[in-house]
């Protein structure tokens, strides 16, 4: 191991290469094992596992989005679930229209819930939901627009720290309440479900599930690459500087609000993308995704994984989600105890998360300059506002 890490080529690799390599390898492995090894053999990966992994990768992308704003810019958003859900609803609307006349009521134009509510025509905001391109645009524009509006209002008037967190929480709570209303035209309590097919491929077939998993992996890799480039650009430096000393950045002549809004919008779009990939894999989107608890769970993935490092967010999302799957299956009672304990312990004992732990271990194996762009810990003097 020691010699391996000291090998000159490997030393030059950044975390970007590592993450993409690992993603590629594991996707390849899952694909091959799912397709070419028969059920019951040792190497077989079941369809259930494939869709589970697809879900985890969506969570990882979502965690990445939160890490961008929290880990790098110091904006603790307790409302990122809203962007995720909006992206999911954009995808859900498209999938809903793909059902066509195969719904319970057989109406070729209207989704079932609208027929049930005695609506005669589609509301204006459903116009175009039939179109793939329009859907893809909406997956980014919906969350992005909300983030832009919220961000430009909040960051211009310098709402920051805890206040901002509470505002974001109120935002997702308000959306939760609104989407629960039947009059909103998004299926109310039940949300959008009963999807049949995506791009004319049946959502029930294992091949489509595998394809969605691969697509999610590609999206995650792309999202990671984008985040990596942003954070290693000059702009990324400014954003990190805003996190550590916003006032000084302002005195130097930058406009922190612009950078904050921009990174907030990018992050919201990534979250929207994650939501759009999530919905076809789980087959439902409902207002529950807006619940403040969901948003806080995302934050804990990032905290456990290690904020301020992009790969930390991925690790956190996958590890915590896996733990949740296991725990809720074995002893559902204990899950909230475990999750709560994780919150407390990770904030008390692991301020840099699992990524920090990993760095420490790697450093012990081969002392070298770690390439973390910044320290997750902020100087206490600046933090107190």
């Amino acid at each position: 191991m020691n010699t391996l890490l000291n090998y000159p080529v490997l030393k030059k690799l950044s975390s970007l290469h590592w993450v993409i390599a690992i993603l590629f390898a594991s996707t390849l492995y899952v694909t091959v094992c799912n397709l070419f090894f028969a059920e019951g053999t040792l190497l077989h990966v079941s369809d259930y596992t494939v869709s589970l992994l697809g879900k985890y990768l969506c969570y990882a992308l979502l965690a990445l989005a939160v890490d961008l704003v929290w880990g790098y810019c110091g904006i603790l958003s307790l409302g990122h679930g809203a962007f995720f859900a909006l992206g999911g609803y954009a995808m859900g609307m498209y999938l809903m229209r793909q059902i066509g006349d195969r719904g319970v009521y057989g109406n070729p134009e209207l989704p079932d819930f609208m027929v049930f509510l005695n609506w005669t025509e589609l509301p204006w905001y459903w116009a175009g939901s039939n179109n793939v391109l329009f859907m893809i645009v909406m997956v980014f524009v919906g969350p992005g627009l909300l983030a832009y509006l919220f961000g430009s209002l909040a960051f211009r008037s310098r709402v920051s720290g805890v206040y901002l967190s509470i505002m974001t929480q109120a935002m997702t709570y308000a959306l939760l309440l609104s989407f629960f209303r039947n009059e909103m035209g998004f299926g109310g309590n039940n949300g959008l479900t009963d999807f049949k097919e995506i791009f004319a491929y049946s959502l029930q077939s294992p091949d489509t599930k595998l394809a969605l998993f691969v697509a999610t992996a590609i999206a995650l890799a792309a999202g990671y690459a984008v985040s990596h480039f942003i954070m290693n650009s000059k702009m990324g430096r400014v954003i990190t500087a805003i996190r550590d000393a916003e006032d000084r950045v302002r005195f130097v002549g930058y406009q922190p609000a612009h950078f904050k809004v921009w990174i907030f919008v990018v992050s919201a779009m990534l979250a929207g993308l994650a939501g759009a990939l999530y919905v076809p894999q789980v087959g439902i989107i409902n207002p529950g995704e807006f619940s403040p608890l969901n948003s806080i769970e995302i934050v804990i993935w990032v905290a456990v994984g290690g904020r301020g490092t992009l790969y930390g967010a991925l690790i956190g999302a996958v590890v915590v989600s896996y733990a949740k799957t296991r725990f809720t299956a074995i002893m559902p009672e204990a899950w909230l105890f475990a999750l709560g304990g994780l919150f407390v312990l990770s904030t008390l004992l692991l301020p840099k998360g699992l990524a920090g732990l990993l760095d420490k271990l790697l450093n012990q194996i081969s002392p070298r300059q770690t390439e973390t762009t910044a320290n997750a810990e902020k100087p206490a003097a600046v933090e107190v506002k």
Partner: protein
Amino acid sequence: MLRLFSLLVFCLMSWHVAADDHLATAGNEQQAETTLASLLKQLPNTKLNKMAPLIKKIAATSAPQVPAILETLQAGELYYLKANKQLVHAQRTQHKKYDLTDLLSNAPLPSVTSSAIKKVRTNNRIRRQIGDLLSNMELNAKDPAIRLEAVKQLLDSPNKVGIKSVTLLHDNEPQSKIRELMSVVLAVEQLKAGTEAEKLAAVSILTGRLEPAVKNALVKALDNSTALSDKSELTRALSHAIDKIEQQGDLYQIADHLFFGLSLGSVLLLSAIGLAITFGVMGVINMAHGEMMMLGAYTTYVIQQTFPTLIEYSLLMAIPAAFVVSGLVGIIIERGVIRFLKGRPLETLLATFGISLILQQLVRTIFSPLNRQVEAPQWMSGSLDINPIFSLTYNRLYIILFALMVFFSLLMILKKSSLGLHVRAVSQNRDMARALSIKSSWVDAITFGLGSGIAGIAGVALSQLTNVGPNLGQAYIIDSFLVVVFGGVGNLWGTLVAAMTLGTFNKFLEPSMGPVLANIIVLVGLILFIQKRPKGLFPQKGRAAE
């Protein structure tokens, strides 16, 4: 001939009434009872078409048992034994078995099967007659409260007998309030069938009365009179009276919204006020605050379970108990977790959120995930009627008073006690306070305990308003934070104003757009407000603000 006959009947009747009066005033109950007994004996043998006069005679005896007997007959529970024609009050139990009690003495008799007894038959007309007679008797009752109730009922559903007796009773009524209501009843009658002048007089009596029946009568009269002439004096008077009543109605509607708004505001105040200390004064983001309220509510539940005979006092006992329970848990949290996270508010937020999850699950494991039933003591139910369309329910009234009490006692503690002095000193300048020999870590723990304890007290109040379940706290945490931020962090008065403003706003929006939309609009409005004024309604000034 006919005239002569009716005169005779009239004479007989007036003699009869005079005899009744004599009986009642003399208080000769003995005699009344014997008359009653002999009249009752005729019941089994009387045919349906002869029933009405007999019942009238029974009512006229004014014996104390009469109301009960008539009610039994009206309910169809009056039977007689086939064997000896003894009248009984029979209640069916099951399988054609009947429990019997003697009609006059109320003494229990052995239960029998349906074949041994026979029902005294009545029909709709007789039952209605009995109803009228009964309300008439209530109008004559000695207890003013019963009389008032009877007049009120008469106003809502007028009947001829009742109105006739009100006409007679009106002038002799000693209580002015009842007399007024009686004249309203009569005026409503005049409005239905009177001359133009009588109607005008009636309208002037009815102007300003808020009873819904009065308004209905006026509107009906207006509909009838517009058919006759457009601009008559009566029409104008009627529409004027209706306008006035509607104006007053609107006014009381606003008062009603205000009352509901203030009571919602008090709930918000109660839930936010503990947070105003931990968040506002100490600067600690306690996401487990809602769970402190939940603990308080469950403490109430436990106390009611332990002392099931003392439900009336359970709330009073629960207040100190909840304060202690939640306060202790708060101190444990502060000592165990929060003090290690000083100066890192976002980490505190996450850690306390974790604690809230643990507490929720703990409650779920101990008490089951289902909602628990917390009983409301007797004195919490009922309402204070100001007038027919405006009443204050006691539980809301108590919540408002209780919230204000808690608020002011907290204000006193912070402003007047030495603990409050230390708390404020530590929050303003920790190092300087320590230099003056204040144990800052001890003050932190006590302050946090105080805030949590008050959340527990809020939980006692909430147990009377909402379901007591593991999610009780979650429902209030976002609102409480918004109230504190809206009011201005570190400002108790701001919290009071913010809570009341939000509560009232919500309740005024609610009728036109429904509770959910009202909630959403208030939330969005708040978000926009905080963007404009990040420091809230009443920002702290000076060095303490930094």
